[in-house]
């Protein structure tokens, strides 16, 4: 393949990766931004979304589109409910203490993972894409559904931005993020905002899982990789910054696409990790984060 198409493929791969990354990291970034806690179980919410999508697809066998629609509705609801329950049962009990939350969510990660292994099994199970077509370029073909995933992810990012900047909940969230005590003094129901944000973060992860599962497969260990990448994106972008998350996702996604097509995927991961280190040294708050600290 000559250089032009090669570059085009790298760009295509990078863009899809970037949108998916942004969507996956968004929930983590929201939770950290507002609540100042790190949810290590974030990847498991992503995995649960994918596994629930598989259940929906078997429920409505024969019609991948209906199964997909059902999953888009059910998976975030179920995962959101689980997140609410864990907020109430775990996070509130440890008083959202950052260190305790890390340990508690590591525990949650293992519980979710092992429950899925027990009840769903160790197999990687495929889910048919809701719409399937192959985009045929003169030099190579590409999955049409991947392009749809990128589009849907972009729409969800826009929706989140709208919710954050134009709704009352968004206002509450931003207020809580800026100053917890002042927000409380102005009557912001901080506890409820915390629970909502935690659930929202989990729901976004679940939606990402539903979108991605036709491209990958539902597997009980699939949450680990997105978790790692989400951390990288969130750290580079600046914890809690929506804009930073998106910019960092594109930085990582496109460079990952280019480097892994032209050199090797391992080199791409090495460079991403180096970038994290550099950001931590020179801008500890991230590219768009609060660097005053």
């Amino acid at each position, binding site marked *: *393949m000559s250089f032009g*198409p090669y570059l085009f493929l790298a760009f295509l*791969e990078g863009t899809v990766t970037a949108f998916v990354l942004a969507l996956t990291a968004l929930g983590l970034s929201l939770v950290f931004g507002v609540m100042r806690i790190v949810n290590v179980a974030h990847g498991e919410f992503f995995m649960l979304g994918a596994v629930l999508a598989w259940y929906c697809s078997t429920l409505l066998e024969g019609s*991948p589109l209906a199964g997909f629609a059902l999953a888009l509705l059910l998976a975030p609801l179920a995962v959101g409910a689980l997140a609410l329950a864990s907020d109430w049962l775990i996070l509130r009990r440890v008083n959202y203490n950052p260190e305790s939350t890390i340990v508690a969510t590591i525990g949650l990660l293992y519980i979710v993972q092992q429950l899925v292994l027990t009840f769903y099994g*160790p197999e990687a199970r495929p889910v048919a894409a809701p719409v399937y077509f192959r985009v045929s370029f003169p030099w190579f073909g590409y*999955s049409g559904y991947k392009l749809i995933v990128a589009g849907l992810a972009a729409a969800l990012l826009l929706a989140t931005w709208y919710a954050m900047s134009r709704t009352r909940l968004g206002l509450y969230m931003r207020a809580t993020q800026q100053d917890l005590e002042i927000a409380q003094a102005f009557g912001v129901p901080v506890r409820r905002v915390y629970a909502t944000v935690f659930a929202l973060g989990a729901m976004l992860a679940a939606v990402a899982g539903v979108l991605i599962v036709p491209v990958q497969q539902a597997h009980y260990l699939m949450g680990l*990789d997105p978790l790692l990448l989400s951390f990288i994106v969130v750290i580079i972008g600046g914890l809690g910054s929506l804009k930073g998350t998106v910019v960092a996702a594109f930085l990582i996604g496109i460079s990952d696409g280019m480097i892994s097509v032209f050199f090797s995927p391992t080199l791409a991961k090495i460079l991403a990790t180096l970038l994290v280190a550099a950001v931590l040294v020179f801008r500890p708050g991230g590219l768009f984060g609060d660097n005053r600290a």
Partner: protein
Amino acid sequence: MNKTGRNAKTPSPPAAPVSRRRLLQAGAALGGTAGVAGGVVPGMLASSAYAQGSDRPIRIGFQVHRTGIGAVYGRWYERTANAAAAFINDLGGIAGRPVEIVPEDDGTDPKRGAEVVEKLAVQHKVDFVYGPLFSHVVIGSAPRAGELKIPYFVVSEGYHVASGKLNRYVFQPGITDVRAQVTAIAGWVMDNLGKRVAMIYPDYAFGYDHRDFFSAAAESRGGTITAHLAIPPTESSYTRYFPRIPPDTEVLYHVMVGPGVLTFVKEMGEHFGSRRPEIFGFIDSLEGVDIASPGLGFLDGTYLWEALPRYADGYPTRFEANFRRAVGVDANGASAADGKDVATYSHMFGCWETLFAIKEAVEASGYRTPRDYPALIETLEGFRYFNEGLGHPQGGKQFVGALHQCFGQQFISRVADRRLNVVHRTAIEDGLYPPEADYTKQPL
């Protein structure tokens, strides 16, 4: 140093005469009374054998991948090991002693693997340790078995046993290693699919075995490797690799153990469309996966290596049928209880055969307690073959004591109509290679 040939140099006491005779008896009983290996186990044999030895059970530690990346394999390995133990107990046990399987999960993790070997040996006081598959776990655990001086029977395929890099306590008597597998099929691939081959393999030891030995075997037959593509084990998107395959490639050779295989196949289809090269793969990637899964349509018309055909019509012998029934697998290679639960059929027979190899070695060596390990090891090293039978349903095997490795036949199947149809069966000789190791020279 091994110029004299593999068999000439191994001391050759008569290989396990007792056990083989018993197996033949059992086989005859089964074949005679039940026709196609029915459910009847020769009760006469069972009762008489137990009566002789009122000994404590032989405890076999089973290092199993219950969790972690190997969990699909682990589940079927455990079912197979339990079925083999039950079957052996019905036959009268090992040397008249009942077999007891002591399972321990290693999380498909090398560090945990070494701990499991130690726990089984020291805490559970098992007679032998057996069962792991994943090469990194075996390579991580084997040194501990050597230090503890406990025989360690792996069912792992990798070339690490036969390469000589492990130790005298590690054996692989139940499954052919990768080097022999790829050597055996290389000729068929060259003759039937094409000589210009691009290889896609996982970026760790198991993949390197494929890369090194298939490349060598292909080049010795006039083939050319047009591309070597190593894929990191956690990869989830493969589109980016396909542009590196030169357009004049005639055959795409793929082996990819990992949960990403369905994506791999789908993206391969998206990339190539109808202008694809011939495709030859190893079923390792698709073990536990239904060939009729959505997204696998692109595999139609491609070829897969199998060690033991998944579909019952691929190798219809009564020994195979007995094995299939005993483990609880239907004619399509799925669990008899749940048609969606597909077996890891090309690997798990190794657990069955290894347990029978242990039985034969124990009985031939007169093993009773761990004090008899040297006798057991030397006896097993003297074995030269395992006969096809109830204990070895995948086929007869040559055993090379110096390498601690067995060599068996391999199958090549074509995917058509969303199932596998055997098109070629290799001979044991096709996979033999000059040995590079001699474990018998190591101290016990």
